[in-house]
């Protein structure tokens, strides 16, 4: 596939791995956090960690939007899905996220009309086709996905589609990064920055990381060579004593982002005072709600939802995994009580979650490494 195969070239990968080896100080230990779940997925899928020297450690961050949804929000969605006459729509990975008493798939099995969609525009189409039903879209995702929800709501408003509403769980990327940087139990050398979030927000919002915390950031693409090159760029910054935001993914990410996307988000959404993140707790101004102009489309106003905070299962260590304090396999229930088929924690649900990515791809590599 053009524009993809070039970034999966194994020979080039070995060349970059050699350059990484030459760039590191053998006396130093490097911890680099990849923020985005897509990077985590690529790292395990292509065995990128196997190409890195032993003193370069990749830490998996909180950038999987499915993984950070707290159980209480899932319970709210399930309660709305059970309302009479509701067609409840969401992205596929949300269906298996456990609430306190089951998943949206369980709700579907119990008779709720729960449907998977690829885009909120698909949910709006269902609403147009079935005006006698209430169609609810469970919106999750970072700034990459929020414009899609915003544009859909603008269409719904312009067309006067009154049977459409949204449970807004959109989150923003900067506040959790700041929270992580403030965390006393976290030691990081630099960040592999999110690629497609940056197509919307640009590179500028990450400038506070070098300016205020003295850590370099490299915005990265998702192919294996992208991630390897980004690691090399970070290590070179560290070796040369530089501390900047660099854009490895310049073929896609404009430095200033997408002004039109930011504008529609500004019109449709407003910041919540705080929002709960699974494993990270409440983070100020990290979540979005519908703005007052779009309040009529707010499913949380249209339906009654419990709105109760639910503590994570005690055995689950998603929080430590999301903060990079432990590796997925160090969790007490990883691969035993918690598997992709029967997840306890959200990191095992989404294919981008660190635990699921490691479970699906990483055990092979660890076995190989152990055998060497």
């Amino acid at each position: 596939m053009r524009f993809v195969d070039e970034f999966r070239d194994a020979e080039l990968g070995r060349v970059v791995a050699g350059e990484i080896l030459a760039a590191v100080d053998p006396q130093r230990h490097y911890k680099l956090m990849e923020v985005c779940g897509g990077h985590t997925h690529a790292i395990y899928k292509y065995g990128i960690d196997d190409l890195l020297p032993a003193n370069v450690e990749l830490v998996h961050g909180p950038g999987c939007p499915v993984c950070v949804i707290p159980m209480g929000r899932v319970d709210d969605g399930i309660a709305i899905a059970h309302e009479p006459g509701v067609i409840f729509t969401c992205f596929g990975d949300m269906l298996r996220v456990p609430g306190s008493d089951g998943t949206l798939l369980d709700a579907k099995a119990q008779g709720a009309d729960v449907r998977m969609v690829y885009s909120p525009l698909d949910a709006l189409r269902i609403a147009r086709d079935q005006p006698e039903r209430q169609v609810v879209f469970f919106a999750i995702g970072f700034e990459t996905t929020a414009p899609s929800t915003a544009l859909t709501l603008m269409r719904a408003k312009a067309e006067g589609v009154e049977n459409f509403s949204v449970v807004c769980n959109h989150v923003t990327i900067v506040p959790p990064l700041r929270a992580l940087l403030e965390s006393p139990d976290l030691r990081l050398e630099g960040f592999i920055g999110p690629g497609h979030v940056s197509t919307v927000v640009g590179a500028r919002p990450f400038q506070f990381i070098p300016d205020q915390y003295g850590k370099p950031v490299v915005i990265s693409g998702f192919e294996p060579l992208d991630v390897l090159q980004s690691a090399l760029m970070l290590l070179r910054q560290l070796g040369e004593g530089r501390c900047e935001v660099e854009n490895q993914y310049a073929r896609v990410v404009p430095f200033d982002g997408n002004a039109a996307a930011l504008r529609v988000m500004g019109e449709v959404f407003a910041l919540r005072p705080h929002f709960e993140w699974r494993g990270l707790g409440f983070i100020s101004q990290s979540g979005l709600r519908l703005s007052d102009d779009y309040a009529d489309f707010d499913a949380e106003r249209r339906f009654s939802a419990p709105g109760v905070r639910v503590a994570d299962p005690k055995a689950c260590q998603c929080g430590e995994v999301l903060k990079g304090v432990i590796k997925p396999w160090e969790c007490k229930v990883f691969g035993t009580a918690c598997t992709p088929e029967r997840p306890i924690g959200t990191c095992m649900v989404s294919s981008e979650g660190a635990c699921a990515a490691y479970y699906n791809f990483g055990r092979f590599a660890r076995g190989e490494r152990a055998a060497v």
Partner: protein
Amino acid sequence: MRVPGPPSCHCATCADEGVPMRVLGVAAGAGLYDCAGEDGETTTVDMTLVEPVAPDERVLVHAGVALVKLGAEP
């Protein structure tokens, strides 16, 4: 690099689900265009955030919306 064994699966929600597509032409509805993916499959995409676009231009699509125009193929 290891050749992946288990099946690949993308999470539609996650930001890594950015699909390069080629613009085919205008579809019914303001800002909507028919587009083709690398596999030839066609779908309708909202181009509001990257307009104006012309046939054969390439865009990166996430959750039914084009987020950025891509350069020419290498």
